[in-house]
C-alpha cells in the first residue's frame, strides 16, 4: 500500500464540510465519526441512508451534506447504492455522463440495519463486488427508538428491552465482512481521528465493497454525559474492547495495539448501561467473563 499522506494530526483537514445544527443528540459519537469521515470524502458522493438516527440528518428543507442524499429503508440501503452505482456506470459507459459528474455511492447505516435487517442486502452487494463505501455508525442498539437491544449490543449491556443486561454477545460484523473478502474493511472510532483518517484515505483509493465500521458512543443510549464521548471512545480502544483494525488483501492488521491494555472495567464503569455490574455490589463473575472475552481476543492477535 502506498505511503500514507496523513502522518500526524495536523495533516488532517482543518475545514469541516458537514454542516452543523443537525438533529443528532449532543455528544453523538456517530456524528463525531461522520464529521471526520466526510471531511475526507467530500461532496462528490451520494449518501444512501438506511432507517436510523442519522435519517434525521436530512430533514426537509435542510441537509448538512454538500453532496447528494437518498433515504431508502431499513433493509435495503445497499441495494439503493447498487442502483445508483449501476446507473452511473451505465451512463458513463454510454458517454451520457461526464467523468467529473460521477459520484461515489456511500451507504450510511446504523447497527440495527447493518447487523440485522440490512445484512442480506449488504452481503449480496459485497458478493457482486459493488463499488461502494459502507459506513456503519454502531451505537450498539436501536438508538433512534430508545436503545432496544440489537445484534450489535454487547454482552451484559442494559437496554430498554434487556433491563437485566443483554444475555447474548455482540455479533462480529467486521469478520462477517472479511469473510466476504471485500476490497477493504476497517473498524474506527471518532476518538482516534488520525487512525480513522488513514483508513478513509486507504478506502477512498480502492474500488469495490469497503466497510468503515465506527463504534459510536451514545450518551442517551449508553447513559453517560455528552462531554464524556471522546474519553469513552479512547477507553474503548485502550481497554481492548474495541479493536482498531483493517482488512485488506486477505489479511487483518491491527492498527493500534493497546499497550498496556487497561482493565475493561474502566471502560464499562463509565456507562450507566453497565452500572448493574458495579452497583449495589460488583458482579465479579460477569466482569471476569467480559474481561476473559477481551483477553482471549487479544491472545489470538498477539
Amino acid at each position: 500500500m502506498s505511503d500514507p499522506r496523513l502522518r500526524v494530526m495536523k495533516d488532517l483537514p482543518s475545514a469541516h464540510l458537514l454542516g452543523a445544527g443537525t438533529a443528532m443528540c449532543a455528544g453523538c459519537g456517530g456524528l463525531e465519526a461522520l464529521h471526520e469521515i466526510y471531511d475526507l470524502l467530500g461532496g462528490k458522493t451520494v449518501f444512501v441512508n438506511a432507517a436510523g438516527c442519522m435519517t434525521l440528518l436530512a430533514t426537509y428543507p435542510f441537509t448538512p451534506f454538500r453532496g447528494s442524499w437518498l433515504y431508502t429503508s431499513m433493509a435495503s440501503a445497499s441495494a439503493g447504492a447498487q442502483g445508483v452505482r449501476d446507473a452511473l456506470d451505465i451512463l458513463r459507459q454510454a458517454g451520457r455522463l461526464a467523468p467529473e459528474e460521477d459520484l461515489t455511492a456511500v451507504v450510511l447505516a446504523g447497527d440495527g440495519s447493518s447487523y440485522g435487517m440490512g445484512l442480506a442486502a449488504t452481503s449480496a452487494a459485497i458478493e457482486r463486488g459493488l463499488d461502494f463505501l459502507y459506513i456503519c455508525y454502531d451505537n450498539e442498539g436501536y438508538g433512534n427508538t430508545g436503545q432496544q437491544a440489537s445484534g450489535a449490543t454487547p454482552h451484559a449491556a442494559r437496554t430498554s428491552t434487556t433491563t437485566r443486561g443483554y444475555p447474548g454477545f455482540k455479533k462480529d460484523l467486521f469478520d462477517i465482512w472479511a469473510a466476504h473478502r471485500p476490497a477493504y474493511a476497517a473498524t474506527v472510532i471518532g476518538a482516534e481521528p488520525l487512525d480513522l483518517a488513514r483508513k478513509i484515505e486507504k478506502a477512498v483509493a480502492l474500488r469495490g465493497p469497503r466497510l468503515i465500521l465506527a463504534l459510536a458512543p451514545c450518551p442517551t443510549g449508553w447513559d453517560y454525559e455528552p462531554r464524556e464521548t471522546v474519553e469513552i471512545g479512547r477507553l474503548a480502544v485502550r481497554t481492548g474492547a474495541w479493536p482498531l483494525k483493517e482488512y485488506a488483501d486477505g489479511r487483518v492488521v491491527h492498527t493500534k495495539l493497546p499497550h498496556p491494555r487497561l482493565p475493561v472495567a474502566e471502560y464499562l464503569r463509565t456507562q450507566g448501561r453497565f452500572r448493574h455490574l458495579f452497583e449495589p455490589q460488583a458482579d465479579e463473575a460477569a466482569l471476569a467473563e467480559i474481561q476473559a472475552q477481551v483477553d482471549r481476543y487479544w491472545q489470538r492477535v498477539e
Partner: protein
Amino acid sequence: MSRVLLTGNGAAAWGARLARVDYVPAFPITPQTEIIETLAGWFDRGEMPGRLTVLESEHSMVTAAGAAAATGVRVFTATSSQGLLYAMEMLYAVPGWRVPFVLVNVSRGLATPITLEPDHTDVLAARDSGCLQIHCATCQEVLDTVLIAYRVAEDARVRLPVIVNQDGFYLSFTREPVEVPAADAAAQFVPPFDPGPIAFRASRPVSQAVAVLGGGPYSYFRYEAHLAALAGLQAYEEAAAEFAAAFGRMHPAVECYRSDDAEVVFLMIGSFATKAKDAVDRLRDRGDRVGLVRPRLLRPYPAAALRSALLGKRAVAVIDQNLAMGLGGVLHAELAHALYGQPGAPVLASFVGGLGGRDITPEEFCEMAAIARRAGMSGVAPPPRLLYTESELREVRKLQAVANAERHGIGGQS
C-alpha cells in the same frame, strides 16, 4: 413491424427492449422468470445495451429500481405475487421519489395456501401505493402497454412508477400472435429518457426522500403524488391515442365491448375478461343485451369513463378475480364508490371467482348475467357470491378424506 408467436413474458421482454431500457434490476419468481431470462440473454449477447443486475430480493430489487431511476436511467423490472408483497415497503416508498419506471407483475395467487396460478389479489395490494396500474388481457396488450406505460410514467405531469399486470400462465406462458413494432417506430413513440431535475450529479446535489417534520409538509407531498397519479388519466389518454395513431391499435383506459346498448354488463379485468367476451357473444346470440366493460387502467381510477360506460345500465355483474378478506371483491367496492349517488346508477351484483386460476365457465357467466338482470329488475343488489360448484366441493371433500386417511395411517391412531 413483424408478427410472431410470443408468450406474455416474451411480449413483456420485447416491450422493455423496444423501450430501450438501460437497467433491469431483477429477482426470479415463477411465473415471471422468462422475462428476466430473456432480457439477460439479450444483454449478454450484446443485442441490447445496458445492464441486468440480480438482487437478493424483490425488496432490494425495487430499491435498486428506484435508486437507478433517481440517477437518471430508464429502468424496467418484473415480479409476481409473493415477490410483489416482499417489495411492498419500497413500492409504497418509491412513488414519493417521483421516479418513473415500469414494473411488470405476473399475477399469481398469494399464500396461503401456496399456488402458482393467477388471481389479482397480489397486484391489488399495491393499489394505494402511488404506482399506477394497467391490466392486460392479451399478449399483444402486454407488449403495447409496456411502451404506453413508459410514456405515462415519464410524463412531466406524472413521474411515477407504473405496474403493468398480466396473468400468470394464462398470458405469461401462452403463445399468441403478437405484432412486434419496428425498433425505430417504437423509439419514436418512446423518446430518450429525460430525467429532468431528478438525477444525482456531482455538480447538482439532490437530497431525495428526506424526512419531514409534522403533518403539514407530509400531507403536501402525499397530496402532490396523488394529484400526479390523477394526472395520469390525461397522460394515459394522450399516450394511448398517439399509440393508436402510430401502430393502429387502440388500448383505451376502459374497454367497452358490445356494451353500448346492453342492459346487463360484466365488469372484469385481465385475461379472464376474454372469457367474458366469449360469454357476451353467446348471450347476444340468444338475444340477451349483455356487454363487457373492462378497465385496463386501475390507477389512476378511471371513474369518469366508468360512469359514462355504466350509468343508465340496469345492472352490472362485477366479477372480482381477487378477494379482500372480510370485505369481498375489490373492483366491486371501487365501482360502487364511482357510481354511488349518480343518477341512473345500475344495481351492482358482486361475484368473486377465478381465484388461483380457477376457471370461470360459460354456464357461470350465463348464471351471473341472469342474477344481475333479476337484480336490475328488482332494484335490489343481491348478496355477494363466491363462485364454486358442487363438483368442486366434492373434489375437495375427496382430498380431505385422503388427507385424513393419510394422517391416521401415519400417526397410527384411529
